């Protein structure tokens, strides 16, 4: 029943998500293969459904292949696309290395390849472009929001990091630190990993609250993703404090549940990691096919900030249907 609901909502809201729709006609009737990593997270599921929508809107016949987290499946899928003679290939690569051979095969078959949301270690001429977010920027946007929010007041921040050593955790930490650098009133008092999960986010936040005078000393929590923020919000409530008021909550990703929290006044800001990587990709493809315009090698998606002022209920409804 969930699937039907998903489809209905997705179809209804398709237009809302199409930020740009130039050169639609030029892609009409094309066949594009899409090798997706899998569906390991809500965001990934949303990316898949948005990509399908984007293709449908442009009249593209999208061949979808789920690699279930295996590079060999992706390579197999890409070879299949080449054999079918598709007009272009989208790949969300599961790992960075080992792509040279298959990308060369695609190049020889003159099929443009566009990378989505992750890069690869391969010569740049083997793919048309790579569409991804800038994780450092995401952290920076979150940090800048907090700097503006607290003004000159002292603010003790606790940080919920992503999985130790993972690229998004490193980059989002770096961006946030860059933003608050030079503002001596903002201090990261504690920083621990919440493994990007809701449960760990809650557990770690509980510990922070105990360690910081029952939470009274904490001014804000910065979580590297919304799931951990949702867990932290519950921990703050359990400690008898008001999330969003007593402790400000800022995080990254913009998944539906954080908008639900904003509606309840429990979250203050989130930075969007857009699931719409396909839109810019198709635009670049259209321009390229039309007159051979080579797109930028690295297309960076927008890192949009959302606050309770941005109609969180509407955002929640929009996103809920995308499979988050």
């Amino acid at each position, binding site marked *: 029943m969930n699937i039907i609901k998903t489809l209905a909502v997705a179809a209804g809201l398709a237009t809302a998500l199409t930020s740009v729709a130039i050169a639609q006609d030029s892609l009409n009737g094309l066949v594009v293969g899409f090798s997706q990593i899998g569906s390991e997270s809500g965001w*990934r599921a949303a990316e898949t459904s948005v990509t399908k929508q984007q293709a449908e809107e442009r009249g593209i016949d999208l061949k979808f292949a789920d690699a279930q987290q295996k590079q060999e499946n992706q390579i197999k899928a890409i070879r299949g696309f080449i054999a079918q003679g598709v007009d272009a290939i989208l790949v969300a690569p599961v790992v960075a290395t080992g792509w040279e051979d298959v990308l060369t095969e695609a190049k020889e078959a003159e099929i443009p390849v566009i990378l989505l949301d992750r890069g690869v270690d391969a010569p740049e001429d083997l793919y048309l472009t790579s569409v991804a977010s800038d994780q450092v920027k995401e952290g920076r946007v979150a940090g800048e929001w907090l700097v503006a929010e607290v003004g000159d007041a002292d603010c003790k921040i606790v940080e919920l990091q992503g999985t130790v050593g993972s690229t998004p955790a490193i980059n989002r930490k770096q961006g946030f630190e860059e933003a608050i650098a030079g503002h001596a009133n903002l201090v990261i008092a504690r920083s621990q990993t919440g493994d990007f*999960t809701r449960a760990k986010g809650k557990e770690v936040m509980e510990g922070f609250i105990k360690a910081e005078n029952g939470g009274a000393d904490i001014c804000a929590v910065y979580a590297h993703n919304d799931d951990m923020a949702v867990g932290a919000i519950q921990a703050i409530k359990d400690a*008898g404090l008001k999330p969003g008021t007593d402790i400000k909550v800022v995080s990254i990703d913009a998944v539906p*549940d954080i908008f639900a929290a904003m509606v309840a006044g429990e979250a203050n800001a989130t930075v969007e990691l857009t699931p719409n990587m396909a839109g810019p990709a198709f635009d670049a493809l259209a321009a390229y096919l039309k007159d051979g315009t080579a797109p930028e090698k690295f297309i960076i998606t927008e890192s949009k900030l959302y606050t309770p002022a941005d109609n969180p209920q509407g955002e929640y409804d929009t996103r809920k249907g995308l*499979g988050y």
Partner: protein
Amino acid sequence: MKRLHLERLANPQLLALAGVLLINWLLFPNFFRITWQDGRLFGSLIDVLNRGAPVAILAIGMTGVIATKGVDLSVGAIMAVCGAVAATMVVAGYPTPVAVIAALAVGIACGLWNGFLVAILDIQPIVATLVLMVAGRGIAQLITEGSIVTFNDPALIFIGTGSFLGFPMAAVIALALLILVTLLVRKTAIGLFIQAIGVNRAAASLAGIRSRMLLVLVYALSGFCAAIAGIVVAADIRGADANNSGLWLELDAILAVVIGGTSLLGGRFSVPMAVVGAIIIQAMNTGILMSGFPPEFNLIVKAGMIILILLIQSPFATRLFVRQRLVPAKAGPK
């Protein structure tokens, strides 16, 4: 009688727990402070009980499995499946009791499947349970369609975040389960039979113990415990997270059982000590959180502590420790 009492006090698990709590206290002087807030107890020690509960619940089931010389790698995945079942059912509008019972039934069914593979088809436990460990998470993802199924059902949420007499519900559930299972293995002959199977399954069969039936039961219990843990964890975060719920917790549960003094080679076991083992692990986790060390050190600190605890329990240390007490002890059947 007196001797027994002394031995209990001096057992290595409780010493290790005391040691870890002491270190936590040194790192964080307010560690033992417990206050009453909003009708419940509030403090780091309570957090340890609350957060340790899922692994403790898993360890209760895992102890029986390990005592039969088996292992159940699938409990983490079963947690994810059962959490997903409970969450999607309440979201779909089923009454909470129905959703909970269905989730428990799914957990038992998963356990029966493991038991069938191990006891009837004679597949090695590590391989047999690997099947569900891998497949289970996929099933959970199918149920949740890859997303976190968030719910607002107050009764279900109460299981994860409510309190009973001021204690967190998760810890109360773990304690109730501990008492129930301890009574089951101590007051019936099941405990003895489990040990007998673990020590020597061939001899157990020749002594007339229905080892197949008992093995199936033991794995079913483990699945049941995993279902409870899955419901508790989902209820705690008000959402079923198929990707992360119970991830790697099977390893924590096995570790808890081993810290609790049950050998992976089967035989003698103690359910209460396995629960103590789970609390030790959680006390370490909480200590690391409170310490303010950079998270890069988490795993190293944890590994170091575990090595230390296992060393304390090693036969070598036990010999040093128990030496004087055993020498004069002279018992015999007259």
